[in-house]
């Protein structure tokens, strides 16, 4: 009995030591144009001095999964090492004609649409590899969107800790409460990836949630 207790005690200590040293795969998921890359850029710039990817008003600007390894985030004297994974926005439909509205030429629009569909497939494939996921939503949009519900349902089924971000709170139309009432079982943090508003609360939540990683 005593041997068993000692064994459990040491195995818990060693597994915690290992957990603290390893890189946490932090995924940024959500619908297109919610601000996933803007948020990932802000974090990377704060802690590595470099950005992750380009941002644009045109949807599906990120069409490949992008990585940034060994991002050491420091918050209130504690540090955690992350592998940041910025994913293309998940959508259920992609029509090249949508890009024409942004004055993209037809040939380029078709190419962009093709790459965007591949990006969605890639995002979905990566879902199961994440340790922790930040679901970035546009706080000015209706959160009752099936893509949001499907992403969060999948993470819940895989027991991956989730943090919901209500982005774009610098805009007048932003409604954090609507997002909170759509997903009452999760912590929702309102931020502005553009201005950096409320990022401290975001880091606090990420650190808190990292304790739930299996």
């Amino acid at each position, binding site marked *: 009995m005593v041997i068993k207790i000692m064994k459990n005690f040491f195995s818990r200590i060693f597994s915690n030591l290992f957990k603290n040293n390893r890189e946490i795969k932090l995924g940024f998921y959500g619908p297109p144009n919610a601000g996933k890359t803007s948020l990932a850029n802000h974090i990377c710039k704060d802690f590595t001095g470099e950005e992750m990817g380009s941002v644009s008003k045109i949807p599906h600007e990120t069409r490949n999964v992008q990585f940034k390894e060994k991002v050491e985030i420091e918050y209130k004297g504690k540090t955690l090492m992350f592998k940041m994974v910025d994913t293309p926005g998940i959508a*259920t439909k*992609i029509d090249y004609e949508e890009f024409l509205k942004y004055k993209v030429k037809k040939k380029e629009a078709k190419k962009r649409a093709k790459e965007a569909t591949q990006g969605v497939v890639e995002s979905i494939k990566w879902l199961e590899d994440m340790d922790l996921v930040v679901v970035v939503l546009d706080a000015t949009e209706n959160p009752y969107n099936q893509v949001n519900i499907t992403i969060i349902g999948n993470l819940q089924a895989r027991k991956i800790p989730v943090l919901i971000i209500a982005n774009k709170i610098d805009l007048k139309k932003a409604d954090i409460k609507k997002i909170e009432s759509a997903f009452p079982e999760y912590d929702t943090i309102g931020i502005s990836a553009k201005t950096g508003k409320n990022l401290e609360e975001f880091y606090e939540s990420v650190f808190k949630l990292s304790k739930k990683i299996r």
Partner: protein
Amino acid sequence: MVKKINSKKKLGKLKGFSIQFMPYYEIRELGSNDRIRKVLEIVLGNNILILQGKLQPEEETRLIGDTMAMIGHVKSFKGIELAVIDNSKKETFIERVKKSVLDTLAGGDLGAVTIIGPASIIKEIKRNPKKIELMLKG
């Protein structure tokens, strides 16, 4: 609530479109691959499917992934519109246990309804906690 946003004149564009209802027992015994294949057969045939119950979360993402891979390969296919209507109110622990037992006995969540249709027909499925609107293309 189905809202038609087109005039009578433009209804010709919706030729061949129908709404099909599928009771859950038709997919209960099927594996994920066959469930998705069955759903896709209906949707690719230019139909809106109203399914009793809902797919598993992993099946929903598989469906999205599979349809994305079809865009550009299947003529005039632009993806799907998808909505699941279920009881999303916050449940107590007892309610959750009860629901889980009932769902297990029924083989799925029969209290839910799933709407799936091709994006070439459905413009948008607007939803909020009180209502759901199916906006068709004109």
